[in-house]
């Protein structure tokens, strides 16, 4: 089988680091290695580089630089936000509200907190993956200390009504955390306007390096530390700073948020053409998630009668990179909790394919998928005991 150029349509999993970002990082991997906690000249350079990156993040989020803390990624940020707020405010209450469709970094942290005596409400979502605001209001008790709702979902791309949630949270004086890992660079964010108290981000999702991320913490928020040790990050996050990573994150967020609209335009156009082509050519196929309120690059489609992993394996043979919500890639029996939460039956959830477009894609990639995917689906259906051609 002929290998074509790599058609990378898994930008929600991770992105390639922008070459300008790598270039900005290089000096800090080489001669500029000084530990920013030190006192001599080369340490100052490191310190300044970190503070300049902090400014860039602050600007992208409409925050103050002093409200930005660097972490090792989205997972650490989510863990810190949830555990840190929960433990620091447990005298005030023990109730946390989140949703059924959060990333595991939030869900598993909530499960851990349940073991520690906290109560967690997992809000349901509608068929498009959107949280019901009246359900949210109903769930609030005088014990509620934290609401955590993701900005945009990593699987189906659904964008939540974050400003409305922020308003509800602030009216009830409850801290509001949002996992914006998938949103940065795709949706303009303003933590002030949306009443966000804590916001997680991860550089490798917006063309920055892996292993670096951050947490926005609104001034005055009561939150415990997650990592104890040295006095870095104004005594809130210990550990020698990953300077190259931080510098890369700063550059990446600057690039990703410089011109969100025109960036989206290009990607959304390709995405929409791809969607129309797939739905037009392949029967027994449905789009998961919301038609409008979705990330510009995200497609999540279920193909009945077939299973996702085998689809991915065949696509890989043609150089197409995608992902699936089938349990078969994760080794569990349950397919994606997100697809189940929007009401998909198990067998349909198993047959889902996520294609997430981004900077790596060109129109010819769309052509390639539109040529290959129908064949792949047809081939697997021909093997499937569930499929009858006359269906």
């Amino acid at each position: 089988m002929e290998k074509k150029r790599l058609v990378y349509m898994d930008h929600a999993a991770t992105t390639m680091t922008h070459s300008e970002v790598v270039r900005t990082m290089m000096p800090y991997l080489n001669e500029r290695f000084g530990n920013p906690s030190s006192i001599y000249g080369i340490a100052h350079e490191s310190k300044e580089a970190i503070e300049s990156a902090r400014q860039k993040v602050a600007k992208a989020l409409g925050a103050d630089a002093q409200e930005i803390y660097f972490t090792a990624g989205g997972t650490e940020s989510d863990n810190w936000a949830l555990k840190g707020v929960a433990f620091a405010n447990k005298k005030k209450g023990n109730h946390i509200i989140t949703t059924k469709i959060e990333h595991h970094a939030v869900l598993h942290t909530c499960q851990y907190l349940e073991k520690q005596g906290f109560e967690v409400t997992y809000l349901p979502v509608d068929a498009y993956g959107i949280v019901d605001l009246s359900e949210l209001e109903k769930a609030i008790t005088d014990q509620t200390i934290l609401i955590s709702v993701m900005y945009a979902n990593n699987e189906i791309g659904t964008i939540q009504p974050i400003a409305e949630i922020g308003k509800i949270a602030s009216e009830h004086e409850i801290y509001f955390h949002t996992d914006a890992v998938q949103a940065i660079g795709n949706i303009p964010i303003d933590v002030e306007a949306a009443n966000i108290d804590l916001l997680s981000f991860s550089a490798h999702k917006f063309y920055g390096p892996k292993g670096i991320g951050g947490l926005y913490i609104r001034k005055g928020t009561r939150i415990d530390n997650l990592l104890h040790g040295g006095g870095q990050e104004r005594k809130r996050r210990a550990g020698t700073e990953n300077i190259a990573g931080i510098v890369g994150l700063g550059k990446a967020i600057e690039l990703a948020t410089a011109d969100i609209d025109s960036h989206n335009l290009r990607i959304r156009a390709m995405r929409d053409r791809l969607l129309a082509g797939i739905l037009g050519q392949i029967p027994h196929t449905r789009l998961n998630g919301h038609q409008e309120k979705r990330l510009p690059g995200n497609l999540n489609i279920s193909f009945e009668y077939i299973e996702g992993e085998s689809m991915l394996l065949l696509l890989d043979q043609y150089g197409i990179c995608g992902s699936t919500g089938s349990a078969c890639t994760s080794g569990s029996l349950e397919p994606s909790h997100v697809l189940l939460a929007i009401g998909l039956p198990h067998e349909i959830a198993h047959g889902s394919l996520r294609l997430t477009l981004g900077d790596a894609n060109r129109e010819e990639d769309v052509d390639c998928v539109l040529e290959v995917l129908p064949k792949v689906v047809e081939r697997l259906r021909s093997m499937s005991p569930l499929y009858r051609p006359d269906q």
Partner: protein
Amino acid sequence: MYSEKVMDHFMNPRNMGEIENADGIGEVGNPVCGDIMKISLKIEDNRIVDARFKTFGCGAAIASSSMATELVKGKTLEEAWEVSNKAVAEALEGLPPIKMHCSVLAEEGIHKAINEYRIKNGLEPWEEKTPYGEHTPGDGA
């Protein structure tokens, strides 16, 4: 992740399809778990002269079905009954731990098809070592 053998049987599955007027058919698995295998056998003189599969499932499930049908073709029913999931996995040059249940499913499919034949022909069905459906996938550890 997968051995070359698995990829070969996934990309070029042997014995894919259904036998018309099959002598024994076994359908195992369920769509909730994401794997269904349907094995059909042509049996002559107590010997499997043809075996076919249709599978809804992951790469390992498809490769396991393909390999299992290859392994039982030409064997007597007694010999075919002894083809274990381990034999399937070994013939595939190994499966990732979290995919071992696919080979179990293939073994079960063959067994179910053989017993369907036996029952249809007034014979006592043979007993499974582990009842259908009680396999659990590895925990990935």
